């Protein structure tokens, strides 16, 4: 963008706001609830009004890069001339390529589904993979898996793009030059022979943690062959604190899992259990949603959250207490003291903290046996030990908390192990280093000097999916296989084992981790399949192993392998105090990124472009800071600060985040990659460069402003459909449209119809058009905002299902993002600790659709089932429809974003959905391809479509089950029942658009002693 463009975008782009104004607006006496989406809205900057009234702001139509009037005329002439001719192109002949021998189970045209598991961290995510004639195209959750319950998360949904990523390492290399597996074999054999003599004293294997039973057994065999060798596990966002906390409480490492279905009261100590990537997330999300149903009345659960940075988990809490990460421990001690747990101590708390603690303690005490305390992975071991003690004191063990043996294979203190490895390497004790999956050069703690130490190892081998920062410093690089290309096994958070089965032959002849490790002790040509099958042959005690094996592959898990509950008792006694951060100093909090995780997903464009939960930023990380703190420090959005931790310095841009605690900043890890592929390299800044082993999660820091004007891509700053605060003397149609409706449980019980009070709802006959009777099917959708946890999985699922392109940061800044579904975050209350509401907005499928009447070519018309059809091949791109859409859900292909040439992407696309080109409008169609499929199946069998037979991609993906889709003409369908609930309401119903998508209003369950959630 040139300077002019930059200025323009700053004028109207989200990212500019005056905090003083925002605060003034907030402090003004307000009437009724106020919901706002961004600080710009609060400040009501000029840019905000433009975003409010136009779907695409002025600059959306700006020519990409400084084009002159002459160029414009030339192009217009050419396109006028070509427009007519392009319709006359003769279709080229195309070939049909049948099988030579068609596999029995394949019916061309009908997809097959295979159960498998995706290893994530050490744990399994159960998946069901859709395959079209041998090409995996879509990942779903496995509904039969006891630990997955059919839900999915962003990483599962996006993993299909990883497999087809053309940036993956495609060959074996030696010093960056092409090489072969057999040459590697020779090199390895030489090194191993000399290791044999010294019992492997110079052999080190560095891998990510795993729960794979086969891998564990292979590692044992390696250990037997090379008794002096060492297996080091390293993951930058590891669970060392969880393990250490368990050691402190029980004297051994015990896996903790929760049963939120039994939990009346949930207290989170910085726990982020509703975010993708948390072990057991799929399970907890479903359980949490089940107990948050207000129809349970007083059995609805209550959720207290103490959090150091706002997360989508804390946004679901009835009471939130933002504190610095280092202060969580003293609050935990105070609560522990209150509930009579060991290690408790009433600390020096602020009045509002005391009030919160007193109320939480009282509630926890009143629900003994049905309360649970969940500590965050990034809290120090002491907090975990305190949580164990509290859960014990509250009688949670065996009820809401279940202890089992560890799921991971050979759990270890990863930081200590990596430190030892670095030390050994510096001392020249390591002769052969095999790195598998890890990327320590990028993500190891800075104080280890890992890269320099590693350079002293005579033979370094790296096995991974991508050429990354570590690859640059090794001799051999072996290209790995994606989990959709390999045989393997893994365990989910409850221990249930799953077999990973390949959906496609390795695209680039990669070697799986199993094959890579087995090459140390056995043949280099042994297939992963044989290794995995052989292991389980010894484990599955069944007379007919073949049949049992096939059943396991069919079901996606091995029955009865969940780890049994253990009875353990916390030791009690003193829990040593963690070293405190100076309370007056600024604190920096390191967090894994909600979407690209620890950086290993950085090359995934779907994840990069998905707006992050809460901040809604994409293609960037930022220095999150509280709006108050920003004001005190004289910082505004986009100011670049130098963050200094222990003399190490990194620059990053400021993003004031409502709900962030003061005197603290949050940095998401995983950005600032220098080598990972075309998508992720150079995006954001790396927090790892500040992170040392003694302070992995929070540390003392100093920030200093060094620049300004960093442009952010913030999709939430577009597509406003409502705003809450009107300056005196101004009037605006878009003011106060009751987009969010909520009540407390008490109010809901007293007045179940709260969602329809004071709402103007025109009678259905108030339309110029004749009322159409939908006599066949009548599709509709309900979205339960009480269940929605704002994890954004639906967005990625929609992107994968509907062949939606990515547009990149620069285009997102122009408001041209293409995701059909967006999840708006609304805040309520002040910027210090606002309540948060998540509202997924797909096309509302209006019965009186404003878009249809303005289309000059009939490219968007109504179907007899009430769908607002979008016919891409008719669309000429006038954009009138999107101009007329009050919900701003239509997306326009301003440029050619679809990649028509990369062969991998051609294989990845859903063959059931048209691939749209430039100049075409597109939008959510309720997954029309799935509807057509369900309808045809039903008609072929001469029956009605069954309830639940047609499932939209977003519905299927939702881990919380918040989205329900079905036939509104069927009185017994789930969607009809939900649509008839009193909590149900339509967006902007005063416009009489009569949307088919409706929302279930939010009901919160605050503690009456603390008042409503917004003020706590």
């Amino acid at each position, binding site marked *: 963008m040139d300077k002019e463009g930059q200025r323009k975008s700053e004028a109207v782009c989200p990212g500019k706001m005056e905090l003083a104004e925002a605060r003034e607006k907030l402090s003004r006496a307000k009437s009724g609830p106020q919901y706002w989406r961004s600080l710009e809205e609060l400040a009501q900057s000029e840019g905000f009004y433009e975003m409010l009234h136009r779907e695409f702001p002025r600059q959306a139509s700006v020519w990409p890069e400084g084009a002159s009037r002459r160029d414009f005329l030339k192009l217009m002439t050419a396109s006028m001339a070509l427009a007519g001719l392009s319709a*006359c192109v*003769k*279709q080229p*002949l*195309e*070939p*049909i*390529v*049948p*099988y*030579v*021998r*068609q596999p029995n189970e394949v*019916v*061309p*045209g*009908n997809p097959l589904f295979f159960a498998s598991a995706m290893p994530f961290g050490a744990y399994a995510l159960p998946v069901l993979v859709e395959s079209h004639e041998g090409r995996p195209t879509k990942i779903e959750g496995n509904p039969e898996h006891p630990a997955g319950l059919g839900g999915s998360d962003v990483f599962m949904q996006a993993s299909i793009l990883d497999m087809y990523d053309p940036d993956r390492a495609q060959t074996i290399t030696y010093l960056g030059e092409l090489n072969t597996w057999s040459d590697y074999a020779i090199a390895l054999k030489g090194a191993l022979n000399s290791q044999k003599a010294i019992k492997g004293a110079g052999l080190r294997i560095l891998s990510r943690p795993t729960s794979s039973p086969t891998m564990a057994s292979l590692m044992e065999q390696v250990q037997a062959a090379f008794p002096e060798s060492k297996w080091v596990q390293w993951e930058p966002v590891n669970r060392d604190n969880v393990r250490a906390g368990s050691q402190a409480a029980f004297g051994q490492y015990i896996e903790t899992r929760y049963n939120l279905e039994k939990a009346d009261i949930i207290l989170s100590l910085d726990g982020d259990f509703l975010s993708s990537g948390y072990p057991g997330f799929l399970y907890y999300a479903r359980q949490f949603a089940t107990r948050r149903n207000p129809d349970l009345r007083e059995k609805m659960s209550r959720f207290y959250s103490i959090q150091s940075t706002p997360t989508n988990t804390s946004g679901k809490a009835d009471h939130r207490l933002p504190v610095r990460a280092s202060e969580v421990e003293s609050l935990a001690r105070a609560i522990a003291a209150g509930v009579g747990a060991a290690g408790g101590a009433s600390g020096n708390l602020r009045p509002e903290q005391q009030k919160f603690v007193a109320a939480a303690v009282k509630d926890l005490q009143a629900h003994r046996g049905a309360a649970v305390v969940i500590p965050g992975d990034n809290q120090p071991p002491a907090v975990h030990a305190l949580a164990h003690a509290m859960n014990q004191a509250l009688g949670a063990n065996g009820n809401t908390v279940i202890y089992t043996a560890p799921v991971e294979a050979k759990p270890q203190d990863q930081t200590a192990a990596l430190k030892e490895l670095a030390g050994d390497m510096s001392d020249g004790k390591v002769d052969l280093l095999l790195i598998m999956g890890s990327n320590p050069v990028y993500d190891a703690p800075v104080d280890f000097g890992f890269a320099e130490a590693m350079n002293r190892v005579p033979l370094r081998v790296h096995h991974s999916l991508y050429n990354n920062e570590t690859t640059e410093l090794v001799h051999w690089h072996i290209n790995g296989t994606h989990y959709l290309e390999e045989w393997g096994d893994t365990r989910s958070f409850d221990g249930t084992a799953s077999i990973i089965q390949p959906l496609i032959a390795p695209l680039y002849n990669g070697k799986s981790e199993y094959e890579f490790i087995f090459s140390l002790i056995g043949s280099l040509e042994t297939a992963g399949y044989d290794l995995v099958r052989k292991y389980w042959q010894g484990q599955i005690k069944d007379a007919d192993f073949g049949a049992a094996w096939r059943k396991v592959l069919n079901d996606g898990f091995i029955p009865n392998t969940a780890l049994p509950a253990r009875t353990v008792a916390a030791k009690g006694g003193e829990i040593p105090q963690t070293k405190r951060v100076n309370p007056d100093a600024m604190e920096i909090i390191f967090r894994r990124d909600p979407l690209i995780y620890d950086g290993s997903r950085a090359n995934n464009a779907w994840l990069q472009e998905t707006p992050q939960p809460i901040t809604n930023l994409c293609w960037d990380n930022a220095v999150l800071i509280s709006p108050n703190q920003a004001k005190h420090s004289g910082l505004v959005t986009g100011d670049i600060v130098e963050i200094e931790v222990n003399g190490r310095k990194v620059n990053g841009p400021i993003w004031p985040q409502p709900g962030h605690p003061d005197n603290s900043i949050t940095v998401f890890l995983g950005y600032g990659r220098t080598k990972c592929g075309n998508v992720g390299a150079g995006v954001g800044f790396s927090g790892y460069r500040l992170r040392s082993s003694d302070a992995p999660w929070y540390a003392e820091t100093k920030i200093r402003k060094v620049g300004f004007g960093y442009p952010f891509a913030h999709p939430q700053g577009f597509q406003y459909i409502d705003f809450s605060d009107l300056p005196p003397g101004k009037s605006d149609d878009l003011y106060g449209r009751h987009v969010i409706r909520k009540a407390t449980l008490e109010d809901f019980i007293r007045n179940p119809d709260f969602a329809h009070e004071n709402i103007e709802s025109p009678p259905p006959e108030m339309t110029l058009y004749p009322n159409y009777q939908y*006599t*066949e099917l009548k599709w509709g959708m309900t979205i339960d905002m009480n269940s929605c946890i704002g994890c954004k999985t639906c967005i990625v699922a929609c992107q994968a299902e509907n062949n939606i392109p990515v547009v990149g940061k620069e285009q997102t800044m122009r408001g041209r993002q293409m995701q059909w579904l967006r999840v708006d975050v609304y805040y309520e209350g002040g910027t210090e600790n606002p309540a948060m509401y998540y509202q997924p907005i797909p096309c509302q499928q209006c019965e009186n659709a404003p878009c249809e009447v303005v289309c000059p070519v009939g490219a968007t*018309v*109504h*179907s*007899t*089932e009430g*769908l607002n*059809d979008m*016919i*891409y*091949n*008719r669309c000429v791109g006038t954009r009138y429809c999107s101009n007329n859409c009050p919900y701003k859900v239509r997306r326009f292909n301003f440029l050619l974003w679809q990649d028509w040439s990369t062969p991998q992407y051609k294989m990845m696309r859903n063959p*059931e*959905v*048209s*691939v749209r080109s430039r100049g075409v409008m597109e939008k959510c*169609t309720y997954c*029309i*391809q799935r*509807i*057509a499929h369900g309808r*045809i199946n039903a*008609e*072929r069998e*001469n029956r009605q479509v069954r309830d639940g037979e047609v499932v939209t991609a977003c519905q299927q993906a939702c881990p919380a089950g918040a989205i329900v889709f079905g036939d509104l003409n069927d009185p017994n369908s789930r969607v009809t029942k939900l649509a008839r609930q009193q909590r149900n309401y339509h967006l902007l119903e005063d416009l009489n658009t009569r949307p088919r998508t409706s929302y279930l209003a939010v009901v919160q369950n605050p503690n009456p002693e603390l008042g409503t959630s917004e003020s706590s």
Partner: protein
Amino acid sequence: MAQIFHRSANTIARLSIIGVVVVVSVVLWAGLEIQRSPYATYQGVAEMQPVPFSHQHHAEGDGIDCRYCHTSVENSSFAGIPPTKTCMNCHSQIWTNAPILEPVRESYRTGKSLMWTRVNYLPDYVYFDHSIHINKGVGCASCHGPVDKMPLMYEAYSLRMEWCLNCHRAPEKMLRPRAEVFNMAYQQPSHDHPVTLADGKVFTDQIALGSELKHRYNVRSVEGITSCSTCHR
């Protein structure tokens, strides 16, 4: 002052006005005709194939049912092109040395697929489903023409949207009993060739038969099957 224009200019002016209208109309008409012509639609054009496979010989001569090769036509959107194995079921026994079949044997030997040229072609934004048409009583021949009379396969109809809509707007004109779907010799009912349904009901008129079948097979309303999203997504 002398006349600038000759008297004949009036006529020329009138003629040229008409002329422009005529020329523009002719150009537009020609464009539309070209689009509808076999040049653009390939209708009636037999393309070169790796093996000059004769449907006439196999379907009419040998009496092989359509579904022997097009196996998924009843339960998938795609009717299925037979794998080489299907050819070899017979041709490993008969005509084993015919030079014309060498590409088939080669494919079977090498495991490399035969590359056929598509004859019945729809654009990528059209999602046609064979199974539902078969199920609702649309005969193979209704869209594919007299395949059993084709020594070389060609597209019998234009397969343009207007052609599809002929039937979608009035399905009763085409429906036949399910039992007759794969019968290439089926004729629409007339006084000379009455059609009897399984329950004994006799029809001599296609519209009467079609309307009855439309009801019996639960064919969706005309509005339903002419909704855009029925075929486009």
